């Protein structure tokens, strides 16, 4: 039997923007097992619901993660609205959906960049992040913040977007679509990229399903789960195609995200043409009494906010289950049998967001 050695990966590692630690059990160059350990950025802010009023907790929910911040805030608000039976005005629903899809665009572009960096394609990293800045400009113009927006509140949204601005954004998306088209052509057709991603980190459909993979990780293995299909926000009025691929390797996960960029652009443009005029918020009185599981689709997969209130201003319990946490068991499965040099690519392929994971 070959001698086994353990190589630590992380928490401070060049390809990881955030700390996660993996003990890789190696036989020569081959990884036979990976033992993840998390907890480097655990803050424990779920407990802050006892100290902050439920209307203020939106800001903390938003800071669960700086990448999908808007979706966290919106999911929390939607959960509270369900408990308190608040009807949100239609325009607010559409605005939330537009910002959520912009978040997805920015998150996927960010991921494409980091992914390119993980296999050493520096130029592609820069190209992806250059396009991403255009998305952040839209956030800055419409909400005032680049990564933390603070534009969602219980009962609606805080800011409106003027209709001529909306049509300007829609026109802008046409040129962004062209740039993204050029970028994704490289990711999907370039030989060097294909060489580093094809048949690397394969996750079969059964494994993806049984290990609880979510989001593009599951869809890359052929499991068609997309929470947007449940029709929260304005998604019930929009046409959401679910993109899947069957190979389950790093290339498939990249393929799914590349195609989802275009889906997001379509969704935003569709929402902009359909958005009705009207108020953007309703007055909120009283306090939540009851519990609710709010599920939403984050760029990385299914996000669950469990909220429980007892009729006071302070919630009793908040529990956040984020997609990266559920994608870690599939990640361990993907790593078994791969080569050490492919570990960064595989780890990046699930789009790990550790701040979400550890809360």
């Amino acid at each position: 039997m070959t001698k086994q050695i353990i190589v630590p990966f992380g928490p401070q590692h060049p390809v990881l923007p955030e700390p996660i630690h993996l003990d890789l059990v190696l036989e020569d160059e081959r990884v036979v097992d990976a033992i993840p350990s998390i907890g480097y950025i655990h803050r424990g802010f779920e407990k802050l619901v006892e100290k902050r009023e439920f209307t203020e907790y939106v800001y903390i929910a938003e800071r669960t993660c700086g990448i999908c911040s808007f979706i966290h805030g919106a999911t929390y608000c939607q959960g509270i609205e369900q408990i308190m039976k608040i009807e949100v005005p239609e325009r607010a629903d559409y605005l939330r959906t537009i910002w959520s899809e912009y978040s997805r665009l920015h998150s996927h572009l960010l991921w494409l960049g980091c992914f390119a960096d993980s296999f050493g394609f520096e130029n592609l990293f820069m190209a992806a992040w250059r396009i991403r800045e255009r998305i952040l400009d839209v956030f800055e113009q419409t909400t005032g913040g680049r990564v933390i927006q603070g534009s969602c509140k219980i009962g609606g949204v805080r800011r409106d977007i003027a209709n001529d601005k909306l049509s300007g954004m829609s026109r802008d998306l046409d040129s962004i679509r062209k740039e993204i088209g050029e970028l994704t052509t490289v990711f999907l057709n370039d030989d060097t990229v294909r060489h580093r991603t094809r048949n690397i980190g394969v996750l079969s459909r059964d494994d993806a399903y049984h290990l609880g993979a979510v989001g593009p990780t599951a869809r890359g293995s052929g499991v068609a789960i997309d929470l947007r299909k449940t029709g929260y926000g304005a998604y019930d009025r929009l046409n959401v195609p679910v993109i899947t691929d069957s190979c389950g390797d790093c290339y498939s996960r990249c393929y799914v995200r590349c195609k989802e960029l275009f889906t997001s652009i379509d969704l935003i443009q569709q929402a902009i043409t359909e958005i009705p005029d009207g108020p953007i918020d309703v007055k909120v009185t009283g306090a939540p009494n009851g519990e609710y599981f709010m599920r939403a689709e984050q760029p990385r997969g299914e996000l669950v906010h469990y909220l429980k209130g007892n009729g006071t201003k302070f919630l009793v319990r908040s529990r956040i289950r984020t997609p990266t946490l559920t994608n870690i068991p599939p990640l361990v499965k993907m790593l078994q049998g791969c080569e050490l040099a492919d570990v960064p690519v595989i780890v990046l392929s699930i789009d790990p967001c550790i701040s979400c994971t550890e809360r």
Partner: protein
Amino acid sequence: MTYLAKSPWIVHYDGSSCNGCDIEVLAALTPIYDVERFGIVNTGNPKHADIFLVTGSVNEKNREIVKNTYDQMPEPKVVVAIGICAATGGIFRECYNVMGGIDKVIPVDVYVPGCAARPESIIDGVVQALGILEAKRKAMNENPGAAKKPAGDAR
């Protein structure tokens, strides 16, 4: 920036931040802000780095890693605390697993405000850190005995 004798390299560690500041640190390296044109390179190796960028607060589990990374950097070195979490713990300061700003563990030279800190202010913080780095280098050259120089440091 003409007074710079060397290209300052940075190493970045994410304490317990929400990620917002981290991606802004990365954004500062990409084409719109592009600090690489000044020779500032993000390295993963603390032994190559002059400037330590820390985002987020410290907790019991990551304090050793922050300290380790800092100790491995050669003299002279400066620390930039990015974002309000790295300064005081910010919005999370009342959480049970947040000890507070990173100055609880290592000495900090520059504090960059913001939640999340904007790339412009991060770059501003790094430029201020360069001045401090230069002053430290000068002080070290004048009085070589004062700062402990790690063995094998060519500078």
